[in-house]
């Protein structure tokens, strides 16, 4: 779960990492005073705000109100700006990069740092980025912070501020279950302070059970996405016209790939996870109907449940409504022939394998055009 910049900075502050003075508003009228010259920053969960005009300076309250008015409501790469962060402008002497994320290969956290920050970190050459895995059995120790400070080329005062920030950022990641915590730029101001200029924090959504405080946070979800989330079904909107339901990420992707081979294109897909629970299949079917695709392709590889039981769930979901679109259904497992017959009798198009199902769905989609 991605957090807005202002929320991320609140958390940095909680862990003792310096951030500029500031406050967040959703209406220009709420700006009463400002802490000196400020930046007005659009709060959207996407990069490239600056280039899109979502970050602007202001020197007076009136100016801040004017700039905020312009930014609030602005569409930034598809995201509508609902809040702006009004923040004291930093006197920047140097911009650096500091982040902690998950390192799959090392099965650990990874401390990343660069003496060059502020710009798109992906364009910084590799030898300018320190990647220091945090050994999980050792945990963070000050020597890691010293490596970072030394790599950044910092001395004395600034070095010791960075060592402390590294420690606090690690504590934040561990205590808040962040899978990403990034400060970019990490600013050295002209008076020698090290301050977080911008911040990205992503909380591990699998760990929300121990962080009730994040559950209530706003997320930009459509009503269908919201429903899918509650049902623990992965829901993704694409450009084609075929609605795909499958169980398991790999099988779902393989279904899309196969569909593509036969010239079909998915418009939305639902991944149930590795389950063939008839209730979940039924919920997914209902959700899919709401998404209004032109063709539905159901591909369930059965593990625990008998195919006829799964088919019964599908029929219950669809039965009552006349949705009037072709449904290609493939359910693999015990009693699959019985299931096929049931689906066929209900007017669906049964398929026996992944290829056949993909081919049939692609053909139907070309018919409906």
């Amino acid at each position, binding site marked *: 779960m991605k957090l807005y910049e202002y929320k991320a900075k609140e958390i940095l502050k909680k862990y003792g990492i310096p951030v500029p003075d500031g406050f967040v508003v959703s209406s220009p009228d709420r700006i009463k005073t400002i802490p000196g010259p400020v930046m007005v920053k659009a709060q959207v969960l996407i990069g490239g705000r600056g280039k899109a005009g979502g970050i602007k300076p202001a020197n007076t309250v009136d100016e801040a109100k004017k700039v905020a008015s312009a930014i609030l409501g602005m569409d930034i790469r598809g995201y509508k700006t609902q809040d702006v962060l009004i923040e004291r402008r930093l006197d920047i002497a140097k911009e650096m990069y500091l982040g902690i994320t*998950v390192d799959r290969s090392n099965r650990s956290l990874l401390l990343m740092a660069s003496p060059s920050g502020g710009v798109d970190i992906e364009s910084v050459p590799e030898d300018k980025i320190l990647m220091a895995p945090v050994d*999980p059995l050792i945990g963070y120790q000050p020597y890691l912070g010293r490596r970072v400070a030394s790599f950044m080329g910092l001395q004395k005062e600034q070095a010791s501020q960075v060592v402390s920030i590294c420690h606090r950022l690690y504590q934040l990641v561990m205590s808040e279950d962040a899978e990403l915590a990034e400060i970019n730029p990490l600013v050295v101001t002209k008076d020698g302070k090290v301050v977080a200029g911008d911040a990205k924090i992503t909380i*591990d959504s699998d760990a929300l059970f121990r962080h009730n405080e994040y559950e209530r946070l706003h997320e930009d979800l459509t009503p269908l996405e919201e429903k899918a989330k509650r049902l623990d079904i992965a829901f993704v909107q694409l450009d084609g016209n075929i609605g795909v339901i499958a169980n398991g990420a790999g099988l779902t992707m*393989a279904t*899309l790939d196969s569909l593509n081979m036969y010239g079909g294109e998915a418009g939305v897909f639902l991944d149930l*996870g*590795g389950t063939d629970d008839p209730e979940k299949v039924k919920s997914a079917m209902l959700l899919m109907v709401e998404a209004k695709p032109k063709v539905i392709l159901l591909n369930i*590889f059965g593990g625990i449940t008998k195919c006829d039981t799964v088919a019964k769930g599908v029929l219950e979901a669809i039965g009552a409504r006349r949705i009037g679109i072709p449904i290609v259904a493939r359910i*693999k497992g015990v009693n699959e022939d019985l299931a096929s017959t049931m689906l066929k009798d209900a007017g669906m198009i049964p398929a026996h*394998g992944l290829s056949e199902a993909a081919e049939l769905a692609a053909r139907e989609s070309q018919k409906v055009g």
Partner: protein
Amino acid sequence: MAVIVDEKTKVLIQGITGYQGTYHASAMREFGTKVVAGTSPGKGGSKVKDVPVFDTAMEAVGKTGANASCVFVPAPYCKDAALEAIDAGIETVVIITEHLPVLDAIHLIAVARSKGVTVIGPNCPGIASPGKAKVGILPNMIFKKGTVGVVSKSGTLTYEIVNAMTERKVGQSTCVGIGGDRVSGTYFIDVLKKFEADKQTKQIVLVGEIGGTAEEEAAEYIKKHVSKPVVAYIAGRTAPPGKRMGHAGAIIARGRGTAESKIKALESAGVKVAKIPTDVPDLLQ
């Protein structure tokens, strides 16, 4: 032979009194697995379908000699259960549980590796050596004993492929579903190493998906260390970039980890890559 689990494997089911635990304890037994014990705190002394239930893993291991465990415990308690198994001396821990927080996975896997314990998963379907033992939730009906080793990040997609093999009378030595979470106890390379050393295994099937760089690393390893023929399938060629595909493992980030890069790396290591999953049996010799 076979790898990781075989006829000597004695399984402890952690969370045996839950629906999944009870169901799969039976399914594992039907597969021929020696399911010797279960745990469920507070229910020690009872039985689930003839399997004795203990309060603690320490007691279960002490009284039954269990050497592998299958963890069905819900995510908030899963790390505790897996570490309990490790501390009790279990050698192979198969974690079925999904949605395990990544920091929990990092800690428990680091502990396991420091002690030489094999963790498979989390969020995996488990492992099956047909004719010998199964630890996990893979459906029994899809397997056939044979000489092909299968290693896969995926669950149901693996079933699809193994099923297609079995329908074509191509049997398996061991099938390992390693799970697709960002941090897993066992990666492709760990299993490839075992398959290369296993006498029963003559060919290898690798099933990957977009995200991460494990397939690229596997290709590098195959080039250097694997002499047996390898066939692969990579899911997600047509997946939209930047979209989360249900697995954390399926995030495409920074141009790395695309299907193209994986397929290219594997092909340059001499691996035959199938276009659709059901083509895999055709590419095996």
